[in-house]
Structure formats: structure tokens, C-alpha cells
């Protein structure tokens, strides 16, 4: 458990890779390192969003509640960011995150995250890229589902 390790990790996360090293260090220092046991829920859809997470180790299932039960939309692994939509969208969590294995994450609180993005246009662009990717993915998923139901 050392700051150096987390510092290294943050440098490899796309959103933060372009920020200056002092900021990265600060980010590492100000965030909490948390361990989740297998099967433990990190957050549920509808919860108020207070932080984002970077996966350090393990796998996290992201599911969306549907009338037919939870729908698995994604599985995130090392270096992935979870929960950033809620932070910027100011909306309750849109999905549920559950640890598939034992998971170690770095939790970055909402205001720290917002602060970093505000001070670094490059990070903001990286974030927009991620969101755009995700939107494209969701749209594709929607199209597929629409095709399935109309069939």
C-alpha cells in the first residue's frame, strides 16, 4: 500500500494521463483505496452519486435494472473508470456496480474529480471521448435490441 503504486496507476488512466505529475500525485494522495469482497455491491442504480472509482485489481459487473431483471451491460477491469457519469450528470446512479471478484479500487470523491477536470482541458477531452464511446456502444446495443424485439 503505497502512494507510488497508486500514482503509477493514475498515470495510466486515460483521463488523467495528460495532467501534470503534481496533480496526479495529489489525486493519488487525496483518493481512498478501498477493497470490496466478491459479490459486494459498490453502488446501486438510484443512489446519489458521490464519487468515481478506478479499478486497480479485479473485475466489476455493471448492470442496468430492467423489468426482466438486471441486464449486464459491461464488465470493467484494471484501469477502467466507474461512475463518472453520475458525477457530471448530477443524476442518480444509472447502473449498479457489483464486485465480480475481490476488487481493489481507488475512490475519487466527486469534488476532487470535478476539480481536476476543471483545471485540465486535456482531461476533459479524454472524458468526453470516453462518454462518446460509451454512447456509441449504448446506441449500438439499443439498435440491436430494437431489431431483436421487432423480429
Amino acid at each position, binding site marked *: *500500500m*503505497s*502512494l*507510488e503504486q*497508486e500514482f503509477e496507476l493514475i498515470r495510466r488512466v486515460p483521463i488523467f494521463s495528460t495532467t*501534470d505529475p*503534481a*496533480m496526479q*500525485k*495529489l489525486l493519488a*494522495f*487525496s483518493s*481512498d*483505496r*478501498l*477493497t*470490496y*469482497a466478491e459479490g*459486494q455491491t*459498490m453502488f446501486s442504480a438510484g443512489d446519489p452519486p458521490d464519487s468515481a472509482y478506478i479499478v486497480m485489481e479485479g473485475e466489476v459487473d455493471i448492470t442496468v435494472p430492467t423489468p426482466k431483471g438486471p441486464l449486464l451491460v459491461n464488465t470493467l477491469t484494471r484501469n477502467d473508470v466507474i461512475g463518472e457519469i453520475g458525477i457530471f450528470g448530477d443524476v442518480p446512479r444509472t447502473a449498479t456496480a457489483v464486485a465480480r471478484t475481490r476488487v481493489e479500487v481507488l475512490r475519487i470523491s466527486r*469534488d*476532487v474529480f470535478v*476539480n481536476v477536470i476543471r483545471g485540465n482541458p486535456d482531461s476533459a477531452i479524454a472524458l468526453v471521448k470516453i462518454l462518446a464511446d460509451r454512447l456509441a456502444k449504448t446506441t449500438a446495443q439499443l439498435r440491436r435490441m430494437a431489431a431483436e424485439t421487432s423480429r
Partner: protein
Amino acid sequence: MERSLFGFILRYSRREQLMILPLVIASMLIYFSMLDLPKAIINEAIQGKRFPVPEATVAFLKVQITLPHILGGASVQLFDGFALHQLPYLFALTFAFLTLIVVNGALKFQINTMKGWLGERMLRRLRYALFDRILRFPLARFRRVKSAELATMIKDEVEPLGGFVGESLIAPTFYTLEAFTAMFFILYQHLYLGLIALAVVASQAVIIPRLRRRLLVLSKERQLGARQLSGRIAEVADGVIEVHAHDTSNYERAEVSARLGRMFRIRFELYQRKFMIKFLNNLLSQVGPFLFYLVGGYLVIAGRLDIGTLVAVIAAYKDLPSPIKELIDWDQQRLDVQIKYTQVVEQFTVDDMTPAEMQAPVAAPELPAAGAVRVSNLALAGEAGSKLIDGVTFEVGLDQHVAVLGSHAAGVAELTQMLARLVMPSSGRVEVGGIDMTKAPEAVTGRAMAYVGPSAYLFPTSVRDNLVYGLKHYPLRERIYEGQELAEYEFQRSEAKRTDSTLLDYNADWTDYRAAGASSREELDLRIVEVLKTVELEETIFELGLRSSVDAANHPGLAESVLRAREAIRTRLAGPGMQGLVEQFDAERYNRNATLAENLLFGTPIGKKTFDIENLAGNEYVRRVLRETGLADDLLKTGHKLAETMVELFSGLPPGHEFFERFSFIKQDDLPEVKAVLGRVADAGLDKIEDADRDLLMALPFKMISARHRLGLIDEAFEARILQARRHFAEHLPAQMRGGIEFFDSASYNGAATLQDNILFGKVATGQAQASTRIAAMLHEVLDELKLRPQVASIGLGYQVGVGGARLSSSDRQKVAIARALLRRPAVLILDQAAAVLDGASQNRIVTSVLEARKGRCVFWALQRNDLAERFGHTLVMERGRLAEQGRFADLKSSGGALQKLLSTG
């Protein structure tokens, strides 16, 4: 209450004043003989005038009555006296002189004590009477008078009265007598000279009081100014939020300064006039001798007066100013005190004061049990003559729940206050269970009914005392006094009786368990828990209990219970899925979730006097331990590294960045200083820096928590050395510091730590997801299982709520107030917007649970949210002071009447 000060003094202290008078006269007589005796000692004993031959004797203590010449001048010898030679006679006379000194001293002591008592008793009586009046003021009075001014009047303004009362009658009598004697003496010696003296004194008596008139006005203004000042200070303190929120602090400064300026001006003039009067007075009295020398001298030269008489007259006149001066001083004091008295009494005189009989103490009055609340033609006139409430008539059973609705200014608040008889109606009747509440004493109204307003007041005591407050009407179980205490009690009682104060014993047990439906303290506790649950306060109180640190000596069995809970937690923490949630304290291990300071102390500091955890590095003993264990160097190196890291991390941040507040060990303002220190270290090397720099660096690591800050600065070897220092610290702790810390010990209760800390006996681990919530749940479970919940809640009830309940949230304050009303099970519970500060969901739940708890018993609830009225059996709708309609909410809401109108507009 007597309007004039002397009326008050004569009425209540005449007897005591008269008792002092003979003592004063006796003292005067002795005083005169003491003046006379030295003459006898010198002339007769020392110079031997009465001892023409050495063998001669003189009768000492001869008692002889000589009849005046008119009656024949015969004399009767009652006692022949002792025949004494010269030397024994000298002894006898000097010892007689000594005896007189002692007797006079004793008399003076007695007189002063009696005067003091007299004054203090009158002061006590007055203060009590004034306070009694406050309790009998109508509520409207409190809107016009500031509480701080009331306090100042009772506390300060009547204070000089105590000193004055003792002198009030005796001093003038005495000095007048003295002055008259001297005056008479002069007149007797020579008529003209006597008339001159009389003229001088008369002019003094006429001119001085005239000059004083302005003084009266001034001292009245001074008193008023001082009282208003204290009112203003209290106002600013109460409204301090507004002052800061609107940046009016300088306006307030200017206001108070202007006020002080006016007071200064008044005092200035007061002094000037006072000394002017003194000057004139002195001048006038000095005119006397001038005239005597002039006129008397002329008369002597002219041969119409012998020189001996002139000397005697001048001597007598010299004695005259002193009683006159005393009289003038006394008069000055009288004026001063009289003004204060009149002003204070004026403030405390209200026309519609509650008669004393209405508040007479009653042990168990007859209270309404069944029947109805019958209100007929109820009306209340406002201050401007308008009718706030007019012609309200209704009847509801004592088992009904009534919602009172109405828009703003509909008279809802006034109606509820009149129902609770807090405000006396102008006309009409309120009858509860056949008893006319407008005429019933407070012993009935205050027990049959309970009222909770929109912002209820809590007294600055514990939660429990606030809850039980409503049960203290009368001392029900006397306290048994013994020995010393009994003597003190009897003394206090007799003094209370003398000053017409209440004879009820404050130290008796006033709690009326029966009113709360309990028969003992234990049962009352159960009832308290019940009402706390009704108002959803039980959990809060329980949490408060967990967060309190209590002395186990005051709670028998607590230490054992806590240790059992600690053991249970330990077992659970070892269970599956719970490992690592709490890092428990272990004397042999470094706790990575605690600060370095906590690890070093390994205990809880008691207070901040011996060890201040925030500034441990500054502690002399801690420094010694660090030096002796060689840890000082480690800390210095670590502090240096920490400082470097911090500077690196935080230097780039803009000023005022929130990170400084949240994460840094260094305040932003101190950053340049730290940078400078680092620069000096780079120049001189770490071992050659100055003491101040050294101290700064060494203090930094104390707040470091390894697990949370993850700086990797404390390795295992360092940890081992800290453990060694920990042992050294405990072993060599000087005896006088032992009281300053309570060490962590897995087998004993720690009185300085909170209950929660005691039970967990460790630190919640960072890095475990949702650790706090999971531990809180575990704590609840364990305490429930061990049946410790009531004990913890009972400790929580001891929580001090602060001034006006400020240490509780506003909604918790209201909940306590509702619980206080519920606890005493009144026949009628009246609530005026009592839950309005609560959030919507809580309001719903609490209205339901209160009504549930009051099933079959009357409730009047003035609601802010109209929809809640659905839960009540009956609804009253008020409109501009009149009862517009009544009935079931469901029937009224769509009947097209007042309620429908209210619902559509509100």
C-alpha cells in the same frame, strides 16, 4: 408593591429598624463617656487634682442621684463606691476606658451586622418579589420588555438598596439628633451667634437640594442608559447571525459607541455637578466660622460677649458640619436609591398581572377526566383594539383528535394559546371536563393541558431534565435532612419565611411519576423510552449515548457491560467477512489506522491540560521521551520528507484551494514558512538547523495515519521504535501527569473515551468499503443482544442540550418538546405547528404516531400542512379570527366551504 421606597422599607423592616435604635443610642452614650473619661484620667488620676495628700482616697463607681434645685436639691447615695488610692484609681479608670472601648466595639459590630442582615433581607425580598412578578406577567408583556433588561434590573439595579436599607431610618434619625444637640448648644450659649449658625445651615438645606434636582434627572437617565445598553448587547448576541450575514457589525459598533458616548456625556455632567455641589457645600459651611470670628469678635471687643463662650460656640459649630454632611450624603444616597427603586418597580408594574392565587402551589388539584372541551363565544382583543379572535364556539369530546386549520393571520395561534390558557381571553369561556379553564388556577390548566409551540424552548440542562421538566409542579417527596444539613435547611427556611419567599424545598423530589403513568424512577425511564419512540428520537438519543464519554463510577455495572460488548465485537470481527473492519488497539502492535500521536500515547488524554493531542510535539515530557528513545531523529527525518512531499504536492495549487483544508498537514498560510525551512535545511544540513525549524519539522508527522495517507514514510523498523517509545512513555510517566491520560487497556474501561470507542477498542479501518455503516449495524446488534441498549440510551438522556437547546438540531428540539408534553399525559394536548420544522416524511410519521399514542385522549393540532388533517377525527377551519366551519376533513374538503377555499389557495 409599594410605589415608594420608604413605604417598602417601613412596611417590611419597621420592627427590625426599631430593634437597632436602642443599640445605636447606647453606643452614642458610651461614645460620649469615652470622650469624657480621658479628661478624668488626666485631670484627676494623673495630675492628682482629687488627691491633695498621698493617703487620700476617691470613691470609684459612686452612684448618686441628685434632685434638681426646684425639688429641693437633696441627693441620695445609692452606692458608696470603692475607696481607691491614686495609683489604683488610675488603673481603675484606664481599665474602665478599655472596657468602654471593647463594649463600644462590640456594640458597633452588633449594629453593623444587624444593619447588614436587615439590608440583605430586604434585598432578597425585593428580588424575590420582582422575580415573582415576572412569572405573573401576561405573555404580551414579554414582547415589550427585553429579557436582558429584566435580568439587569433584578441583578444590578436593586443591589445598592441592600446597603441603603440598613441606614435608611437610623442614619437620619441619629444625625438629625446630633445636629440638633449641637445647634441647641450654640443657641443656648448665644442667641445671635446661634441664629447665624442656623442661617448658614438653613441656606445649605435650601440651596443644595435645589442643585440636586438636575442630578436626579441625570441619574435617572444614567440608569436607563445602562439598562438599555445591556438590552442592546443581548440583542446583538441573539441576532449575531444577522449581523454577520448582512455585514452590519460596524453599524452595531457605531450604535453601541454612540450609546456609550451618550452615557459618558451624562456621567460627565453628573460628576461635574456632584463636585460643584460639594464645593458649594464646603464653602457654605466655612462661611460659619468666618461670620463667628467677625461678629463674635466684634461682640467680644464691644464687651457684649465673653471670649470663653465664643470659643465654645466655634467648637460646637465645628461639630455641626459632620452630622450635616452625613445627612447630605445620606440624602444623596436616598435620592439615588429611590430613583432606582421607583424605576424598577414601574417596569414591574403591569395592570393585568396574574393574581398570585392563580399560581398557588397545589399538590394534587382535581383535574378534568372525562367530558368535553366546550368553547363558547371566545374572543380576544388585539393591542390596537382589533378582534384577533371573535365569537368562537365549538364542542369536542375529550377523546377526540382535532385539527385546526387556517391561513396566515386566521387566528390559529391565538386560539391554541387561549385553549392552553397561556393567553387570557377577553371574553367567553373554555370549559374542559366541566371545569372553567378561564378561572381555574395554573395548577389545573398547566397539568390538564399541555402546549407545544412552533419553536419550543429547552432549558440548558440534560435531555432527561428537559423531559421531566413538565412533571415538576410540587415537591411531592420531602427530602430528609440530618445534622449539619438540617441546621442549614432550618436556617434557610426561617429566612425564607422572614422575606415572604416560597417555603417549597427546591431540593425535594418534585417529579410527579403518577402524572407520567409511572410509580418509580425505573418505570419513568420506560415511559421516557416510550415517548421517545413516539417522536422518533430514541435512535438519536442512543447515538448520543454512544458518543458520550462517561465516568463509570456514576453508572454502576457500565464498565462490565462495555467490556462484554467489547468482547462480543472482538468475536464478531474475527468472523467471516468482518476481518479488518476495525483495527483494534494492541499494546504490542502499531495501529496503522491511528495517528502517530495516538500510537505514541496509546491512551486518551483527559482534557487538554496535560496532553493536547493536537500539539503533542510541544509537550515537554513527550519531547523528553523522544530524546531518550532516540525517536527524535527519526521524526525529524520523517518530518523533513513529509514537508518535501507536501510542498511538492501543494505548491502548484491556487491559493484557497480546498485541498489545503482537507488533505494537507500544513496550512496554506504556513506553506512559505515550510518552504523557507526546507531551504535552510538544504543549506545547512538537517543536523545543523535551528531549534524553531527543528520543532516545526518534528511536529508534522504526528498527525499522520499510515493507512490513510499511504505515504510509506513509516516502515516496520520505525514502527518498532515507536512501540518502544510508547512503553518508555508509560513507564516513566511522572506521577503528577498520571491524571492527564487514560491508557488503552483491553481489560478495562476507559472513562475518557466515548462509549463507542470503548466498545470498538480500535480504529475503523480505512480502505474497507462501507466499513462505518457495517460497524454501526454490528454495534447495534451487539448492544441489542446484550440488552445494553436501555443503558446506552439512558446515558444519551444525560446529554446536555446547551443554551436554548442549541446543541440539538431544530427538529430534535421540537421532538424533545413534544415528548415532554406527551410524557405527562395531559387531558388535552395542544400543538401549534409543533412539527412544522420537520421534513415532510417525518411530519407524516410523527403526526400518526402521536395520534396513535394519544388514542382516546384529546389532541388539538394546529397544522401547517392541511392534508395532514385527514388523520384527525374532527377539523376546525379558522378564517380571520372566526370559526368558519367544522366537521370531518373528508366531508368539508369538497363541500364548497371555507376548507375548500383554503385548500385551493394554499
